[in-house]
């Protein structure tokens, strides 16, 4: 039986350095081409951090979450609110009902990002305490309620924020180096979490819901831990986003963001760090190309006339297509591996068959696909 248990069990430097190097090279390389591409890279790095946040929870536990946008919303809010200029906070029309202490509330940019992480973690910890008691599918649906609650609150509340309007004058990152550094940091955190015993226990519950407790694994506990950490990372993602966009707007963290980041994770392969990275890069690249085509520009000499709105349609279609073709994603749930050019027996790099048991919610694929 040649079933390899997916997931890292010990430190392999190439599995960490590969993604790091790829992200550094691509970010700097593409960012140097033009100013608009540099902005795209910055946004992509924010998305990547969110996809990584999703990966450590969804990928390891097999439980879906649609609620991470709420953490990003909150993280972005506190980071934006504490760094926006006081003058604007005191005078802007959208903020005239702002709670007094918030006007003077000021944090250093990086401290505000840490605050974003903490707020994300806090909300995740509180909501996770009861969400993780639900069975996997119910929890996933319930996280939608979390997202909806968060959106509804921020959209309508003008005491703590600008409501449906934008919070202006949030300081921006000076270039790609700050978001890049943050993204790299998150990659390292995610890698080491994934090889930790907690993550391993979590993956065991993904594979077999009944056997894991028999081994002493408290499923609720490990899910909660992963959920909380991923909440922190999602908060960072939101905080990053607000400093790339220069403004906080609640719609930026709602359905489109949730969909795109989830698509990136699934397309890349939810079971591995490399999958999260690949997914973000591929979807961003495809999205950029489609955007240029939508604008009537040509990419590397090729030109397509795309009607407006076709971009999301194509990405949605790609998501469904990937699921039909290789439901374990482009990476098949594998980590980064330098393909060996020697004997074919030892190299099991990319391109594996999708028979692999890297499915979500521990449905052993051995018994599936049986004449169904």
């Amino acid at each position, binding site marked *: 039986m040649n079933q390899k248990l997916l997931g890292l069990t010990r430190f392999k430097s190439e599995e960490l350095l590969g993604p790091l190097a790829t992200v550094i090279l691509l970010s700097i390389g593409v960012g140097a081409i033009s100013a608009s591409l540099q902005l795209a890279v910055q946004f992509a790095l924010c998305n990547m951090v969110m996809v990584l946040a999703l990966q450590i929870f969804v990928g390891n536990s*097999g*439980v*879906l979450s649609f609620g991470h946008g709420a953490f990003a919303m909150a993280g972005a809010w506190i980071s934006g609110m504490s760094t926006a200029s006081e003058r604007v906070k005191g005078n802007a029309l959208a903020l005239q009902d702002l709670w007094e202490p918030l006007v003077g509330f000021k944090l250093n940019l990086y401290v505000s990002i840490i605050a974003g992480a903490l707020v994300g973690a806090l909300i995740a910890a509180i909501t996770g305490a*009861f969400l993780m*008691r*639900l*069975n*996997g*599918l*119910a929890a*996933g*649906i*319930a996280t*939608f*309620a*979390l997202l*909806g*609650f968060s959106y*509804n*609150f921020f*959209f*309508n509340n003008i005491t703590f924020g600008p409501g449906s309007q934008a919070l202006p004058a949030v300081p921006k990152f000076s270039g790609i180096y700050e978001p890049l550094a943050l993204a790299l940091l998150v990659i390292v955190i995610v890698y080491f979490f994934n090889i930790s015993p907690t993550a391993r226990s979590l993956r065991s519950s993904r594979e077999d*819901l*009944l056997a894991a407790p028999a081994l002493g694994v408290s499923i609720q506990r490990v899910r909660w831990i992963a959920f909380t950490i991923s909440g922190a990372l999602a908060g960072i993602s939101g905080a990053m986003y607000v400093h790339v966009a220069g403004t906080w707007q609640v719609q930026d963290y709602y359905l489109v963001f949730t*969909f795109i980041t*989830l*698509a990136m994770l*699934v397309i890349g392969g939810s079971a591995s760090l490399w999958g999260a990275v690949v997914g973000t890069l591929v979807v961003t690249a495809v999205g950029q190309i489609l955007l240029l085509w939508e604008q009537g520009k040509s990419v590397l000499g090729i030109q397509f006339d795309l*009607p407006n*709105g*076709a971009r*999301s*349609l194509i990405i*949605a*279609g790609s*998501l*469904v297509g990937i*699921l*039909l073709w290789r*439901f374990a994603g482009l990476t098949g749930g594998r980590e980064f591996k330098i393909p060996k050019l020697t004997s074919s027996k030892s190299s099991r790099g990319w391109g594996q068959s999708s028979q692999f048991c890297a*499915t*979500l*919610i521990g*449905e052993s*694929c051995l018994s*599936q*696909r*049986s004449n*169904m």
Partner: protein
Amino acid sequence: MQPFLDAISLGGTYALAALGLGLVFGVMRLVNFAHAELITISAYVIVVTNDLPLIVSFGIAALTAALLAILTELTIYRRLRGTGPAIMLIASFGLSVGLQKSFELIFGALPRSAAVAPWMTGSSEIAGLNITVSSIVTVGLTVAILLAMGFLVEQTNLGLQLRAAATDFKTSRLLGVRSNRLIGSAFAISGILAAFVGFILVVENPQVDPMFGLNITILALVGIVIGGISSLRGAALGGFIVGFILSILNTFLGNARVYAYSYLFLAVVIILLVRPGGLLSKGNEMERV
């Protein structure tokens, strides 16, 4: 009296939406986000064919929704059978977004509207009380459909097969239940139920845009979780409760009405804290989905 009637009417509507979702979930373990687009397409069709008699207009809408549902099953969901609920859920999410964008391309991003069933607006005096026609009609319609569905599920052969398949799909096939036909039926019925929901909603709010059915679908999904994710009765009950609470909140919150959803989600949280498996569950099940 009117607020109570409104609450029942909205509860009934949400129950129908939840039932459509629950049917498909029962036979396939599929959480079908694209159900929202079945509601949306029904509303679009009704609005676009508004100059035809209502029955005809609705009939076309129901047919369209049922066909769209069957089409999504044939092309996408069938290939994902056996891959697990999470993958199917994500696929349905992607499909939902894809369909939304398609509607945008076909119908445009701006809302389409028409005055549907104008005889349903206004109020009349019944039993000495002043109540809106639309709430009465909606309550009547939803009760009738729920009763019909109850009959279908409990008393017909098709219903028996649906119930069996929802419990144990594999063994049902061993007994001769035709899986493809059964699943197709479930999708078709869910399309028809979606058309009813679309109709009720569009009378109330004649502005149809690509995200028309999204809100109710998400809330209906939450309702299913409250009611008990693996029973049709639970689905309908959960949907009803969500709609009922939402309506009451809308009526009595006054200025804070904008926070209705927040309070609703809070209520959901409390219910789930007490009964993680859903209201109709036996209390402490960690169900294997």
